[in-house]
């Protein structure tokens, strides 16, 4: 039995506090809409959406270590699947995120096999190109997607509450599901397989891990949740077009948020999503004309000075304390 060190007992403490903290947070989030105005509700909803994107990227980029720049591809694909199915009256609203998730899961699983044979730079470029291809398809396949004119969706007008409130809870639910899957994966054999592949893919194969299959699972997970988010997004904003939902900045935001909070951790992406939105809001409010440049500056500073994110900063402190 390994001896309990200061680190492990601290870890045990966090493990006990963790669920309690999450539960408290959850209660707060559930009652928050009663206290917020519409604008703040929308901000909170956006945070939840960003959490989903960051956690999704974390599966393939953080856990497995394959730097995907393809989140936008599936966010956009999900948006269009949701929008088209809704405007064609194929499904009721509450099914659209699930349908979008399934489509994205299947597409990612099919495309994953050839793409995941690539490593590093080539994989990054391939995932980037995917988004571009999808965008161009959406742009040109006018009969189905409306081309550059985009797709208009009718407002929700649900009996359950205002549109803002309904979407708040739906995005919160999606974020919770993504969080739950992240935690479950982190603790499971699949999570061990992810980590082994990231640290040494050859060795992982040698100890019996089917790296190709595992990578495809990670890639599919990283596609399904953005797909669902995209479908919700389409209904939420009421209008989508190719350059909006396939915008490459979505593909960059996801890893940046994970970087901010801590790549490959469980809480990191959510922390990063929150921080990123905070930055975005401040910049939007005050520097409209330069918001892209300032966002760029934030990204640059982050990469240069804090490549391990905030979560790692605290962890480093713990290790130092344990050593003294």
């Amino acid at each position, binding site marked *: 039995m390994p001896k309990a060190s200061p680190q492990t007992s601290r870890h045990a403490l966090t493990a006990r506090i963790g669920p309690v903290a999450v539960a408290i947070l959850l209660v707060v989030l559930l009652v928050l809409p009663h206290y917020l105005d519409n604008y703040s509700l929308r901000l909170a909803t956006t945070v939840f959406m960003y959490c989903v994107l960051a956690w999704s990227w974390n599966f393939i980029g953080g856990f497995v270590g394959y730097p995907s720049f393809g989140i936008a591809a599936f966010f956009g694909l999900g948006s269009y699947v949701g929008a088209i199915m809704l405007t064609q009256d194929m499904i009721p609203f509450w099914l659209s995120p699930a349908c979008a998730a399934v489509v994205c899961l299947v597409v990612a699983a099919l495309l994953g096999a050839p793409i995941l044979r690539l490593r590093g730079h*080539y994989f990054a470029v391939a995932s980037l190109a995917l988004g571009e291809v999808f965008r161009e398809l959406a742009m040109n396949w006018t009969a189905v997607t409306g081309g550059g004119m985009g797709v208009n969706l009718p407002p929700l007008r649900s009996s359950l509450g205002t549109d803002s409130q309904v979407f708040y809870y739906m995005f919160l639910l999606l974020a919770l599901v993504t969080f739950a899957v992240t935690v479950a994966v982190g603790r499971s054999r699949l999570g061990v397989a992810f980590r082994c592949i990231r640290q040494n893919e050859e060795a992982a194969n040698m100890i019996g891990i089917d790296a190709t299959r595992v990578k495809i699972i990670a890639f599919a997970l990283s596609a399904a949740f953005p797909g669902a988010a995209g479908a919700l997004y389409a209904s939420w904003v009421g209008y989508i077009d190719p350059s909006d939902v396939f915008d490459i900045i979505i593909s960059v935001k996801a890893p940046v948020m994970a970087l901010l909070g801590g790549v490959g951790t469980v809480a990191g992406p959510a922390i990063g999503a929150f921080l990123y939105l905070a930055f975005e809001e401040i910049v939007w409010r005050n520097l409209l004309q330069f918001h892209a*440049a300032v966002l760029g500056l934030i990204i640059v500073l982050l990469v240069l000075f804090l490549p391990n994110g905030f979560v790692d900063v605290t962890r480093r402190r713990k290790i130092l304390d344990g050593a003294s």
Partner: protein
Amino acid sequence: MLFVQNVVNGLLLGGLYVCIAIGFSLIWGVLNIINFLHGSLIVLGSYIAYFAFVYFGLSPFIAPIFIMPLMFAFGYALQGSVLNVVIGKPVLITLTLTFGLDLILNNLMVWGFTANFRRVVFEHPLPTFEVHGIVIPGDRLMAMALAFLLTLIFFLLLNRSRIGRAIVAVRNDRDAAVLMGVNVKQIYAITFATGVAFAGAAGSLLSVVFPISPINSGVLLGKAFVICILGGLGSIGGAVIGGLALGIIESIGAMAAGPEYTVLISFIVLLAVLAIKPTGIAGKLGYE
């Protein structure tokens, strides 16, 4: 007949495209950095050429002589200050960094120059040639010829000069280059600066053919990607093959499916190449 015209158009364009990709390929091949700034740097070069033309009457065909040293200095400073920090770091870091830098540069250009399209309009444009019924605009021919000239100069520099050989040495085997006494840090800076200089030159030549706006930087970057993957990284031969190939693919594609499909087609080609032979036609070097 139409087919041949399209092939010729494709080659004319392709020659120009080679110039777009050289700098990008060099930076990726030697520094192992995907330079997301590249498109914006080309646009910057176009703007400098444009304003030099409008205010000083300097022809964009000649402007590279002045633009290149300017952009070289800019690139050198940028590498030395910012990019140096991330040399050797994984692609997630380097790509995100250059993406962020590109956001800054692009935004500044939009603020400074506005997004309105500018055109270089010659008072006395070069004549259009006709050879056996094939139309060859003089401007494009000149641009292509100069692009090839620049490529040739670059090729000679890389293979004949001491610095060029050092660059190739670093590209092939960084650690061995260090042992041979090469100042790798300086080589990185020079390489990046050279890449930026060529981007500026490409921009100057492009300004003759295409309208100028910061909005274009994404498209240009995309082309650079396709050319490098198609032709193969880190070699001039690869950039030439890739550039010409893309020019032809775009021309034929536009003829077959319509000009709005060229981007889609070129990116599908990129994915196909990655799936089949990631190192590209010229192959050889492929950093992971």
